[in-house]
C-alpha cells in the first residue's frame, strides 16, 4: 500500500508541473512576395503579420546579398562601377518598437541605397515570443 501511495504521489507531482509556452510564433509576409524585384534607390515595402498563442516579444529583419547561390563568398565586396553590396539589419530594439499581444502587423519601408549592387538578395525575418520561442522565414528578392 505504501508503494502505491508513493508512486501515486510521484505521478501527481510530475503531472502537476507547470508547463511553459513552447509554441513558436508565426510570421506571415504580405509583401514583398517571393522573388519580388525592387529598384536601387527605392524602398522595399515589408508588410508582415506576427502572431503568437500567448504573447509576442520582438522581431529582427535582415537583408543581405545572395549573389552566388548562397555561397556568400562575395558579400561586402565593392563591386565594379562603385556599387555596394547592400546589407542591413533592423530590430524591435533598434526601432524602439517591441511587439506585444497575440497579433501585430508591421509596415516597414527599407531604403535601398542608390549605389546598391544589383542582383539576388535574401530577406530574413525573425520573431520571438515572451517565452523565448522563435520563428523565422527566408525569402528571395532582387535589386534591379
Amino acid at each position, binding site marked *: 500500500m505504501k508503494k*502505491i501511495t508513493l*508512486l501515486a504521489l*510521484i*505521478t501527481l507531482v*510530475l*503531472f502537476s*508541473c*507547470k*508547463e*511553459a509556452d*513552447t509554441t*513558436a510564433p508565426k510570421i506571415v*509576409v504580405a509583401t514583398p512576395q*517571393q522573388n519580388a524585384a525592387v529598384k536601387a534607390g527605392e524602398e522595399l515595402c515589408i508588410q508582415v503579420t506576427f502572431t503568437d498563442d500567448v504573447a509576442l*516579444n*520582438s522581431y*529582427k529583419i*535582415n537583408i*543581405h546579398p*545572395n549573389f552566388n*547561390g*548562397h*555561397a*556568400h*563568398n*562575395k*558579400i*561586402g*565586396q565593392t563591386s565594379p562601377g562603385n556599387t555596394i*553590396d547592400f*546589407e542591413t*539589419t533592423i*530590430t524591435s*530594439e533598434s526601432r524602439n518598437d517591441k511587439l506585444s499581444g497575440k497579433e501585430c502587423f508591421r509596415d516597414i519601408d527599407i531604403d535601398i541605397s542608390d549605389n546598391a549592387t544589383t542582383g539576388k538578395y*535574401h530577406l*530574413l525575418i*525573425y520573431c*520571438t515570443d515572451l*517565452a*523565448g*520561442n*522563435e520563428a*523565422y*522565414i*527566408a*525569402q528571395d528578392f532582387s535589386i534591379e
Partner: protein
Amino acid sequence: MKQLFLTPIITISCFFSAFSQVDTAMFRLDEVEVVATKAQQQHNAKAQSSCILEKDYFTAQRGNTLAQMLNQTPGLQSMDIGSGTSKPAIRGMGFNRISVVSQGIKQEGQQWGADHGLEIDAFDIDGIRIIKGPASLLYGGDAMGGVIEMLQPTIPTTNQVFGEMALFTKSANWNIGASFMIGQKINHLWWRLRYSENHYADLSVPIDTINYLTYKIPIDNHRLKNTAGMERDINAQLSYINGSYKSDYSVSYVFQKSGFFPGSHGVPDLTRLQHDGTIWNIELPYSQVGHLKGSTKQRFIIDNQTLNLTLGYQRNHRSEMAAFHTHYSNQPAPTHDADRELDFLLHTTSGTFEWHIHHSDTLKQTIGIDAQWQHNTIGGYSFLLPQYDRTTAGLFWLVDWDVTSKVCLSGGLRYDHGFFDIQSHYDNYLFEYLTSKGIDLPTAESYSWSSVDLRRNMGNISGSVGLVYTHDKSNTIKVNIGRCFRLPTANELASNGIHHGAFRHEQGNPQLGSEKGWQIDFSYQMSTKWVELLVTPFGSYYTNYIYLSPSGEWSLLPHSSQIYRYEQTKAVFAGSELQIMVHILRNNTACRRLDYNLSADYVFTYNINALTATPFSPPATIRQSIEWEIIDGLTLTPELELIAPQNRVAHNELRTKGVTLLNLTASYSFSCFDSKATLNFNYKNITNRVYFNHLSYYRTIGIPEPASNFQISLTLPFNIKTK
C-alpha cells in the same frame, strides 16, 4: 495530451497488476530450467537496471546501425542522421551524457554534436551490456545517463579455425554491406580479424516536396539529395591465455563518409537541390571521420585476487567539408584545402587499473584507478569547438556482498578530478565586419572571441548503493540509488558563435560546474514457464543540468536569431520500461513455438527553470509482436509499433505526431559448418505511413522517415575443429 497522461498510468497499472498476479501465481509454478550465459549471471547480481543483448539479437537486425539496433530495446533510442549514421540515447539522455565502451575502453569521438554519428562497426558485436541510469561509479563522468558496453568475445576452449561472412542490403537507401571475419584458437593463442564495408545511396523519402521557411523544396524521385555515404572498418584482436594470466590486444579503424542534404545547411538554395543524375555520389557538404583505436587488457589472477590493467589510445579525426563560404569580405579562401570548413582531431589516452579481492564466495571488493587524457586540435576556415586539453582521474571502491542466499548488497564510492585547459580563439574577420557595420568596439570584441582562455578544475564524488532480493527462482527485485556527475564539455564552457548544424548563436558559459544528479531505480523480474516480465521504473533529479537557454537577445552575427546561452538548472527525469513475454505454445502440432512480446517505455523530462521538457525527449513507445516458429529454424514475427506523439518539447523544438507502424520479420536459421547460419528478411513500415522520428537530425527541416522498405541479411559462420 490524453495519451501523455495515459501512458505512465498504464505503465504503473501494469506494474501493480503484475505484482498482484505474482501474489497469487508465483507459488504454484513449475520449476523452470534457467540457462544463462556468464555475462547474464554477472549482470543478474548487479542491482542497477541493466540488460544483456546477445549476439543473436544483433544478427537478426543486421543492416541497421548500432543505435538503430539498440532502439528495439525499451529505454533506448536512436538519434539518426539520415539512415546510415546514428548515435544512441538512453532514457532521453544522449551525446556526452552516456558512454559507449568498446574493446574495454570508453569510445571518445565528437559525440557532443547533433550531426555526428557513432564510429563503431555494427558487424563487430559479440553482445552488449546496457546499464540504464547513472554509471559514473564504474565508468566515471559522461556515464551519467547510462552505458552501452560491447562485450568481449567468448574464447573457445578447444583449438579451431572459425570465421563469418555477413551480407545485407536495405531498400531505403540501397545500402549494401558486407563483412568478413576469420580467426583461430591455437593452444594459448586466440586471434580474429574482421573487415567490413558498407555503401549507401541517397535516402528514399515518402514525399516529393519539403516546405521549409516559405520555400517549397522539390525532392526529385523521392531521393534526398547528397545523403549517400560509406563506411570501411577493420578490426584485429589477439588474446593470450595461460592459466591465471590473460592478455588481450585489439586495434580497429573505422572510416565513415556521409553527405549532408544541402537544404539542411542554412537557407535552402533550390539550384543546389536539383537532382545531379546519380544517387550514389557524395558531394559537398559532407563529413568524414576516421577513428583509430588500440587497447590492451592484462589480467593476472593471484590466489583470491585479480589484477586488471587496461590501456587504450584513440585518435578521432572528423572533417566537415563545405564549399568555402564566408560573410566577411576580408576573409580570403584558404589556399590549401579550401573546402575544409571544420576539422577536429581528438587524441585520447586512457588507463584503468582494477584490483579485485575475492574475500569469500559471498564478499568481493574492487579498488581501482582510472585516468584519461584528451588533446583536441582544430582546423578549417570556420570555428565551432575550441582547442583544448582535458585530464581526468578517478579513484574508486566497489563492494559486492551476498548477505544471504536471497539478499545481495552492492555499492561503492568514487572520486574524480577533472582539469580543463581551453585555448582562446579570436576572429579578426568578424571584428572587422562588425566594426564596419558601426558596432561599438567593446561589443565587436566580445563577439569576436569565439572562445576564451579557460583553465578549470572540477572534483566530483559519485557513488551508489543497491540491493538485489531474489525471492525465489522466478522473482527478483532490485533497488539502486546512485549519485552521478558529468563534466561540462569544451563547447558548453567556452564556445561563442554560430553552430553550423543548428544554425544558431550558441554561447558557452565558463562558470558552469559539473552536472550532478541522483537516481533511484527499481527492477522487478518475474520468470515462469509461461510468462516473463520485467518492469524497471526510475526517477532522477539533477541539480546542475546543463541546457541551452534562449536569451531573447538578438545576435549581431550574420544569419542568426537570438543568442542561446548554456545555463544550469534543476531537472527531473522519470519513467519506466516494461517487457512482457508470454509463451503461448511450445512444441505444439501447429508450430514449434509461439510467443507474444510486449515492450514499452516512457520517460518524462522536466527542466525546472525553463518549465519545459528537456531537448530530445523520446516519445512513449509500445511494441507488440508475435514470434511464431513455424518449423525448426523458421520464424515469422509480425510487429505492431505504437509511437506516441511528443508534445512535450523544449523551447524551439518541434512537436512530433504519433504513428502506428506494422513491421514483419522472417528469419531462417540453419546449420552450416557446425555453426548457426541465419537468413533474415525485415519488411518495415508495411502500411507506408509518413511519419517523423522525433530524435532525427533531419526532423527540424521536415524530412520524414523512409516509406515501406525491406532489408535482407545473410550471416554464414563456420567453425572447423583443429588439433
